[in-house]
């Protein structure tokens, strides 16, 4: 007797339909075999399925059972074929009909309960696209799938529930479909800007970075608040819209980063990998290419603390994704393309000991040590970082009493409003371009969209000689000035905008004296 149960397979962010064919032969020695390029995890299913069925109070048939995972030439990974296999075998013993157009996936525990699996969201999208009506999935993962009206998602806790449901004895209530827009409203609060005392210039730089999607580097002594500033950035970026959220959820689903019972990702991602992270960990890869931190930071913030402690090769690998907004990884085990449109927020100490220019502590580094320390960040990488800001160490005790300081304390919500306004101006500006924000402008876009009045042009060329700006810095300054103008809702780039932009030029590789 042959039973066919539809299931699916995730390769990168793509999903492929897989048929689980279960044949229970009436003749032959009792056995249980799986064919169809099953990996170790799939092969081990045998024991899980056998024991789980036994522990659900149903005796496992002593017959020759063969399972084929079709198409047979694509390697199968993961433990979620447990459920379709078990359902296939059960249907032959308990005699129930498998409903039309249904997808099953789930990992079985030995006691017959279902465990959470990853990639459910992608499978739900696949189901929607291929017109499937029902999905049976473990209860913890059900919310992840219940986002489309067309699909009924059945949360299954135990194998015995499915038997009862399909046998028509006790039906499982499908999960209520969640409106994505409503889900997005349930954002959790982020770290708020108003909690950071002082740092007026650094906060302003962060605001500009958020408004134009610029990458930013913060230089400051330990404890000056670089990490706090970085953590506050997701809260001032415009909220994720539906499309963005779905993109992010895909990546989080496939990497198993969606918490139990969670559905879509509502907040902008904030990733802060440690500086010991490997190249593969950062950009993605591995035997079967999986997404790295840069993809997990897609549409959000990638915060690299201790920027120049990262190995050079790891940092340089960021250059291409920073330019392209995605990363293509090819390995023997397959090929995958992951999106990686993130805002890079880097932070570093000014020198190896960390106390250069510190108001009270003295620096113990020689100029040579400082030069070598700074040289670890290459010029080409610095070129991709538009804003540079030095974060001073502040005496918070004094500041919390200083009324003049509290005048500048703004909540993230206030700043966010300005950022959103600036972003909407950019959206209009780049309607006919393939880019979204000022930071993505190439030279041709700058020529087209950033008109410089003679006054501004004069200012910039004067700055070029007094501050020794490189050609790259010129363009960076124009982009930043454009964003500052957007923040002030100004059509033209005014000289004051350009003058402010010059504050954020990089002095990182300047001569020290």
């Amino acid at each position, binding site marked *: 007797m042959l039973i066919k149960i539809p299931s699916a397979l995730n390769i990168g962010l793509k999903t492929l339909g897989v048929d689980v064919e279960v044949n229970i032969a009436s003749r032959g020695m009792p056995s249980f075999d799986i064919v169809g390029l099953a990996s170790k995890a799939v092969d081990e299913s045998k024991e899980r399925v056998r024991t789980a069925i036994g522990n659900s109070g149903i005796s496992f048939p002593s017959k020759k059972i063969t399972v084929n995972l079709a198409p047979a030439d694509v390697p199968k990974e993961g433990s979620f074929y447990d459920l379709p296999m078990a359902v296939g075998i059960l249907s032959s013993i308990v005699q129930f009909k498998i409903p039309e157009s249904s997808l099953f996936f789930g990992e079985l525990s030995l006691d017959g309960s279902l465990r959470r699996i990853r990639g459910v969201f992608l499978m739900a999208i696949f189901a929607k696209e291929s017109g499937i009506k029902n999905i049976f999935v473990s209860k913890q993962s059900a919310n992840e799938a219940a986002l489309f009206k067309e699909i009924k998602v059945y949360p299954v806790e135990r194998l015995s529930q499915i038997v009862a449901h399909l046998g028509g004895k006790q039906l499982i209530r499908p999960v209520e479909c969640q409106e994505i827009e409503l889900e997005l409203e349930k954002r959790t609060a982020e770290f708020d800007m108003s909690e950071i005392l002082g740092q*007026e210039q650094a906060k*302003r730089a962060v605001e500009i970075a958020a408004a134009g999607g610029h990458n930013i580097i913060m230089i400051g002594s330990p404890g000056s608040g670089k990490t706090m500033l970085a953590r506050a950035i997701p809260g001032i970026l415009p909220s994720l819209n539906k499309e963005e959220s779905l993109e992010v959820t895909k990546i989080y689903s496939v990497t198993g980063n969606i918490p139990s019972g969670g559905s879509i990702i509502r907040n902008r991602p904030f990733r802060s990998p440690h500086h010991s992270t490997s190249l593969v960990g950062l950009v993605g890869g591995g035997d079967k290419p999986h997404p790295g931190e840069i993809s997990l930071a897609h549409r959000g913030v990638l915060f690299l603390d201790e920027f120049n402690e990262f190995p050079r090769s790891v940092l340089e690998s960021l250059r291409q994704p920073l330019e392209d907004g995605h990363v293509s990884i090819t390995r023997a085990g397959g090929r995958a393309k992951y999106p990686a449109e993130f805002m890079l927020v880097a932070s570093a100490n000014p020198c190896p000991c960390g106390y250069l220019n510190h108001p009270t502590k003295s620096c113990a580094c020689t100029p040579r040590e400082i030069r070598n320390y700074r040289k670890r960040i290459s010029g080409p990488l610095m070129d991709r970082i538009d804003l540079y800001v030095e974060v*001073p160490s502040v005496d918070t005790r004094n500041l919390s009493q200083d009324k*003049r300081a509290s005048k*500048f304390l703004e909540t993230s919500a206030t700043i966010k409003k300005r950022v959103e306004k600036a972003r909407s101006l950019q959206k209009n500006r780049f309607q006919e371009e393939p880019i979204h924000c000022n930071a993505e402008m190439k030279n041709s876009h700058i020529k087209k969209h950033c008109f410089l009045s003679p006054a501004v042009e004069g200012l910039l060329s004067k700055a070029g000689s007094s501050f020794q700006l490189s050609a790259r810095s010129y363009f960076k300054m124009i982009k930043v000035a454009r964003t500052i103008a957007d923040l002030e809702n100004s059509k033209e780039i005014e000289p*004051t*905008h350009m*003058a*402010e932009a010059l504050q954020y030029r990089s002095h990182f590789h300047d001569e020290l*004296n």
Partner: protein
Amino acid sequence: MLLSEAVEVKPQPTTKIMEEGVINIEEEKYPELLGKIDHPPRKLYHRGHWDEDIFKNCLAVVGSRKMTNYGLMAVEKIVKEVAAAGVTIVSGFMFGIDAASHRAALDGGGRTIAVMPCGINLVHPEYQGELYGDILENQGLIISEFEGDFPPDSWTYPKRNRIVAGLSKATLIVEAAMKSGSLITAGFAKKYKRKLFALPGPITSKVSEGTNHLLKNGASLVTSSKDILDFYGLRNSPLRNSNGQKTEGREREILELLKSEAMEIDDISRKFGLSASEIGATLSLMAMKGLVFQKGRRYFANFN
């Protein structure tokens, strides 16, 4: 700094003046003042055009490698003016006060002599190649008693210091810790009965302990270039004054504030109750006009 870090770097061929030579102690051209010290170097290797005039009025300016912003400002003001009046600035080419003094002399349009702790073929520290070239291009000299590629060592530095003091009628110590090479140079100057100037410093600063100690023990206190120029019988020559331009409104207020104390942008913005964005824009413009300059996080008023 470890001595083993000294890297042999040949001066870049971009330097046009590559004139080299050796001056023996018997020669007429040998600097007179240097010949009078206890153990004058037998030979002086030099790079750059040997012009006896350069040794006529020499001022040694030495100080700590750990230069503070205060030290830098003092050098940029005093040394620049002294050099502009025609005094040759002699120093040891080390980073910190030494390098700042050479640079200030060049900025003032004066001449400067770098006495190396190693052979004249080496640029040490090696990343100051640009300064090395600039000294030569402005009729300055690179001299050493060590030949060619002789590497610097812990004992060559004090030997070098005796030449720095020996060449000069007077020595100015800008910033020095209690136990430092600068105080060794000061000791030589005293021994050779030369005039010793010292810059007073804050009592809280480690690198002013040495100079304050010298002042207590008879060194002459320096508060302006006039103190030094009077000794040489020279007068302050008018400098190109970049402050000639008029400042008004906010710029003027900021400049007045910075004249009394260097400040960070956040502090300035709090003081005026204006956003960092506005103050930042103003400071950028002021920096381009040469009214202020930035060091690390802080902005300084330009005194020149």
